[in-house]
């Protein structure tokens, strides 16, 4: 993870967002991933989405585990704190960080190895706690840094670069997340930025743990014939179930949004995700419908994308534990320490 500072070039006439920041303010260090890596496209989509949402950089925390995907938090929003943790344990660090300061916007970037193998337990439990964050899996089906081993998301029957056939069933990140009770699950493709940017925005606006599985081809180890995570395969088999767009707070919700297969999902911050069903059979508010749909299309080798499941009414970690609205880390010591008189009273019962 070599660190290269990106030269900041001020160009006159650069567009600014609602808080006066340019796209450049949401960029990070230069990527050292392979040229053409899907992860870099996801980083670009993140930069675009965060800029469009006018998030204050200091209110963002970027966390990751270990692997190619986990390098990427260094490549966006240089004004945000980043945390490159240990392999598979990003969710626990994010959980603690967001427990201490619920005002922060958490983005966890993980990979298929980081989430579906070594970190499978934490992946499940961050969903179970419904920690309010974007949980982004950059899914390429392969271990890149250790040179091409299959990951747990590799499809049965797909081949490695050296020609080995994967015999094991894959762990499907989205189906797993939906069945574990996730409150928001989406899937995108690094090669489809038009779809990905709104997906990211919707996932960040969602008041809970939003799992976003993004197919992100590895150009070096998994972009060959026989791979089911290559650019070519994904483009050919990608199927949009829904399309999402995020309408910021205060924007007008037009009556036409309620017509037909388009319907708005109002978020707690006042914004609205406008969900459009591309396939009329799809209902992203019903868990069994979503799972059945995914399974039917999986059998045909199709990759279903879009917002796949959403339930805004699942209480998040702070609601579950009834913690106070003010961030815990900002509470004054006097509010936390009962003082000497109370200690005396308490000890009267220990005699």
């Amino acid at each position, binding site marked *: 993870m070599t660190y290269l500072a990106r030269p900041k070039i001020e160009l006159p006439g650069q567009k600014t967002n609602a808080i006066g920041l340019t796209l450049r303010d949401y960029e990070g260090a230069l990527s050292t991933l392979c040229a053409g890596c899907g992860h870099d496209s996801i980083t670009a989509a993140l930069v675009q989405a965060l800029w469009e949402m006018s998030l204050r950089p*200091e209110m963002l925390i970027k966390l990751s585990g270990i692997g190619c995907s986990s390098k990427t938090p260094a490549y966006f929003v240089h004004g*945000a704190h980043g945390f490159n943790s240990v392999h598979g344990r990003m969710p*626990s660090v994010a*959980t*603690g960080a967001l427990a201490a300061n619920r005002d922060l916007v958490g983005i966890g970037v993980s990979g298929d190895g980081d989430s579906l193998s070594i970190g499978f337990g934490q992946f499940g439990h961050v969903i179970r706690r419904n920690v309010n964050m974007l949980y982004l899996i950059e899914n390429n089906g392969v271990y890149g840094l250790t040179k091409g081993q299959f990951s747990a998301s590799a499809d049965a029957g797909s081949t490695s670069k050296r020609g080995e056939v994967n015999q094991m069933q894959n762990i499907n990140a989205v189906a797993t997340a939906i069945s574990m009770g996730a409150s928001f699950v989406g899937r995108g493709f690094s090669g489809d930025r038009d779809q990905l940017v709104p997906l990211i925005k919707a996932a960040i606006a969602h008041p809970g743990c939003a799992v976003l599985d993004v197919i992100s081809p590895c150009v070096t180890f998994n972009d060959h014939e026989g791979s089911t995570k290559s650019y070519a395969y994904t483009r050919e088999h990608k199927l949009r179930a829904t399309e999402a767009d995020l309408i910021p707070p205060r924007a007008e919700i037009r009556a036409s949004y309620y017509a037909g297969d388009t319907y708005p999902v109002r978020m707690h911050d006042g914004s609205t995700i406008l969900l459009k069903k591309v396939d009329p059979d799809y209902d992203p508010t019903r868990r069994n419908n979503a799972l059945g749909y995914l399974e039917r299309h999986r059998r045909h080798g199709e990759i279903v994308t879009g917002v796949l499941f959403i339930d805004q009414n699942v209480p998040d970690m702070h609601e579950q534990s009834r913690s106070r609205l003010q961030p*815990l880390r900002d509470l004054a010591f006097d509010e936390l320490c009962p003082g000497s008189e109370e200690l005396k009273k308490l000890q009267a019962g*220990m005699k």
Partner: protein
Amino acid sequence: MNAMQSGINDFVVKIATVNGTGSASANGLLMKALFRMGVPVTGKNLFPSNIQGLPTWYEVRANHHGYMSRCSRIDVMVAMNAQTYQKDLAEVSPGGFLVYDSTWPREKDLNRHDITVFGVPLSKMCNENFSVARVRILMKNVMYVGVLAALLDLDLEIIKQLLQETFASKPKLIEPNLKAIMLGYDYAQEHFTCPLPIRAETMGDNTGNILITGNEAIGLGCLYAGATVGAWYPITPSTGVMDAFTSYCERFRIDPETGDRNYMIIQAEDELAAAGMVIGANWVGARAFTPTSGPGISLMSEFIGFAYYAEIPSVFINVQRVGPSTGMPTRTQQSDTMLCAYASHGDTRHPILFPADPHECFEMAVKSFDLAERLQTPVFLLSDLDIGMNDWMVPELNWDDAYRPDRGKVLRADDLAEIERFTRYLDTDGDGIPYRTLPGDDPKGAYFTRGSGHNKYGAYTEDSDEYQEILDRLLVKWDTAKTLVPDAVLSPSSKKTKLGMIAYGSSDGAVIEARDRLAESGIHVNYLRIRAFPFTSEVHEFLEAHDTIYVVEQNRDAQMKALLMLEANDIADRLVSILHYNGMPIPSECVVTGVTRHQGLEVAA
């Protein structure tokens, strides 16, 4: 077996019962009665890893000197468990006494002529006086307290008062409890010569002392330190820490009007996650901790190394149990000393605090947070099952209302406004401690926290010099830590001597008692109680000043001795280990025997 040395306010009562029969409250009553008579008292719970049905014991030691350690003498055995009767009978010291439930006859061949056996028809009296089955079981336990009250001359008025306080919210229970006490008491008065030659006598009222477990004291310390996030995975014997923290938070940290909580307790999916949560919360600027035991530390080790290298404050409370592996979860040991000192791969070392009793657990819990934040590193509070789960009589806990948490070197938004550029790992003060910033404050303070190689500016590096510069600077910080951790406590002998003794944590009580007994035999030892790792300067001075230094600890491999040998030069031939590691709290006899054997003397132990 030792000769009887008992007398007034100097005896050990052991109660053998079955787990899950409610004997804890009866034993608590006995403890508190002695406590309120002003008699120094300790209670050791010797229990199985089981919820219901297996044998369990409770040992109460009353001692007018205030000796708090376990004593291998048993003066009075209350043998309530038929399953263990034979073993319990054998354990009574010669000249001692045994109380048993004589409702059913004992086997004739089970008898001893060197002790006095008292049969009390406890079950029969219960069945005659109480109708509900569960009440009969509970009252049988209360009844033996009544028998002991007569035999040991406990103050009945105090017992009555305690029952009234205990059941203040359920007054209906006072009457049956009192009845059970009196049934036992009257039976003993009528059938035996009461009181026994060994007995209790009022010697004050213990003003200024409390009865408390170490786990409760740590939970209270975390509350008073201002911890807001606790993450944990349940594990014996540390669970009581989070139970205590939870109940104190419910009492002091919930807004009575809104129900809002000024804390969050997260029961993690495992210890790895608990460690990650604590590190994440501290990174953001909350005080966060995790209570665990040895197996948990093993699992947390990767994250501990991360926090060491990335310099994130974090508090790890280890209530030690018997290892290796699952070991004996309900037995005590000091066998994680080495593990905690160097937890995780690579070159790592961590400050450890060693509380000797619950009083120190409270103080050191607070200190752990101050040290963790000042030093920006994981800090271990190393307790054990003996301290954590047993009832200790200790001086009341004190709180200084002027106390303010030491948050260490943190640059908030205002501070950042005044500097040109922030760099995370620069040692500007020469103490090895850099400045940190908190997420959510200011983009100027943003940096990337990583466990991979980084340079003093916080950037990723694979450059040898840059890497080594950080590793060396962490050693400078280690030297700073030596000046901040609690001092060792020196107890000099009344006579000049070249014999020294070192102990730590729960071995303290056994050493205090053993030194008195050794002095009576003419062996004088100076005693240094280590309270922290890294070792403070007094430790090195003590090592230099003595020809022979006994190192008393509760593990097989002499872990503290090994640590001393690693940290101090040319001392190996002067250190003599006295080890106790069978899982029971160390008794003073172990220390006396260890020293006298080494000195080539035989002392009547």
